[in-house]
């Protein structure tokens, strides 16, 4: 079935079953492989993208349901790694294996848009992505740093 998606500001037409998880539309059909598969059951957050600016776990979003929304992936956060979170991630040397960072940054970006100065409790609640390497302290400090970068 022909489906059209608004991804990072551009329209993409794709031929796929509407029951396909959005994650596979992004990775396999459109070729945006920044969004990762971690668990497939919306528990780890590696697949986090934005639907109309809100964090959503794309492994459990049906493509047919997402066709009307504005989708943002990690590739669309900035053209040149200039988003405050991306800059803070680099400054604080956050990633170890790097696998969680796409989803982690997308979850944090959605939080910062809604709550520009989050508390540590806000971060723990809304950026509950899993980091297998355990670099949570640097993740939290990078999010706080990014929050401080915006006046």
């Amino acid at each position: 079935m022909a489906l059209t998606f608004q991804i990072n500001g551009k329209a993409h037409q794709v031929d796929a079953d509407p029951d396909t998880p959005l994650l596979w539309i992004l990775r396999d059909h459109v070729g945006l492989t920044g969004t990762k598969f971690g668990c497939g059951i919306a528990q780890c957050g590696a697949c986090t993208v934005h639907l109309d600016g809100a964090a959503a776990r794309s492994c459990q979003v049906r493509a047919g349901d997402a066709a009307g929304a504005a989708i943002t992936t990690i590739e669309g956060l900035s053209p040149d790694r200039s988003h405050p979170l991306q800059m803070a991630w680099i400054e604080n040397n956050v990633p170890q294996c790097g696998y969680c960072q796409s989803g982690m940054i997308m979850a944090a970006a959605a939080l910062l848009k809604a709550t520009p100065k989050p508390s540590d409790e806000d971060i723990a609640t809304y950026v509950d992505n899993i980091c297998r390497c355990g670099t949570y302290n640097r993740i939290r400090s990078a999010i706080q740093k990014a929050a401080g970068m915006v006046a």
Partner: protein
Amino acid sequence: MTAERLLAGALLIAVLIAGTAASALPPGDAAAGARAFAACAACHARIAGAPQRNGPALVAVIGKRAGAVDPGYAAYSPALKSAKLTWTAETLDAWLARPAKFVPGNRMAYPGMPDPVARANLIAFLTTPPK
């Protein structure tokens, strides 16, 4: 000032206060809420009698007791069933913001939505009957 005028003035103030209190939550865009529901649909159906998913079907939520929205759903947590909670726009807003904090011990594996406008949109969608 006549008694009539005082009464009219008091009524006007009461209506204004009631109106302000009712609009403490932002007005919701149900169409935007329908798009946001894409993230919820994996677990929540919007038609009664659909094959059971991880969460209860959400056909008509407003005015119902928490833990009783979908009588056919077998996996409500004891915490939610005993919460003595009725779903209104206000309680839904608090629930959707931080479910784990609003009803500790509930089973909805979802951190919440930090954006009050996004919550209002979703609530507007949930309030309109499904097609």
